[in-house]
């Protein structure tokens, strides 16, 4: 029960951070928000009895992927463009 509540809580956070990532003007924040989202997902995997996946997601999805995004940001710009 608590676990379900936790999952729902994390889920809401994840969706919110996804929407935030898409709407924020600050690309750095957007990347970090997606990183957090990944991290939360790895926790959920752990809860779902998938430790291998959780580890992979944490290390690759949340960790290295975010770093790669950040490097990409550093080599371009962190300013957003206008959406129509």
């Amino acid at each position: 029960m608590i676990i379900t509540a936790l999952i729902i809580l994390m889920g809401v956070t994840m969706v919110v951070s996804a929407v935030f990532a898409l709407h924020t003007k600050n690309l750095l924040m957007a990347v970090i928000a997606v990183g957090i989202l990944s991290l939360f997902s790895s926790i959920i995997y752990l809860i779902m009895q998938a430790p291998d996946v959780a580890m992979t997601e944490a290390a690759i999805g949340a960790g290295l992927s975010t770093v790669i995004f950040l490097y990409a940001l550093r080599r371009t710009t962190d300013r957003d463009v206008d959406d129509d």
Partner: protein
Amino acid sequence: MIKRALIFLVLAFFAWQFLLMVTGWEGLSGLGEIARHYMEKGREELGAANIVTAIVVTYRGLDTLGEVSVLFLAAAGIGFLLGAGRLSRKQDGGNAGGLENEKTRRKASEILETGSDIVVPAIAVFGVYIFVNGHLSPGGGFQGGAVIASAIVLLFLSHPFYSLNHGVLKVTESLSGTVYVGLGLLGLILAGGFLDARFLPVGEFGRILSAGAIPVIYSLIGLKVGAELVGILEQMRRPS
């Protein structure tokens, strides 16, 4: 306006499709055919405790080889895109923002530098531990490789001017991959088929040296993945 309507239409349509999936979703009540087989026979066939590892390395070994190839390809592609030729914005007359050069890159703080010097080898060793124990405990080549790569990230952060020994990286990358393929070939020659890990004895359940060649293969995967990820990171980091 039309575009927004279309986007809304698309989202509504897929939401509806997903809703259909959610309402019809019953979840698994038991293991399916092949899952049952893996769980039941996996131990005696391969002797690996971590069935996910058994699947990844052996049963679906070709997938994993492909996966490694994908990573390899991505690294090659990134290397090709970012490595070849000079990255000059003048070609198209771009203006503001952009690339940093050596001057703008700040030196890391002393604490970080010192701390990382201690932590990086430890993390790397942890990574090795993860892939060596892949057949016993959660984790394996990918996770271990990623951990090793994180160690290098830390190194990059603490030593902004650190430059990797590309030769070593390249040799690791090449050899681990080639040996991986070679082991697969051994499986084809000595055991039941390509990537069959049983050309080495299955051994005693639960030991490090058990489960045939799974630990060896997974370790090679770990090295390979680590090398590729580091290569990718290095390419992404390098401001030309």
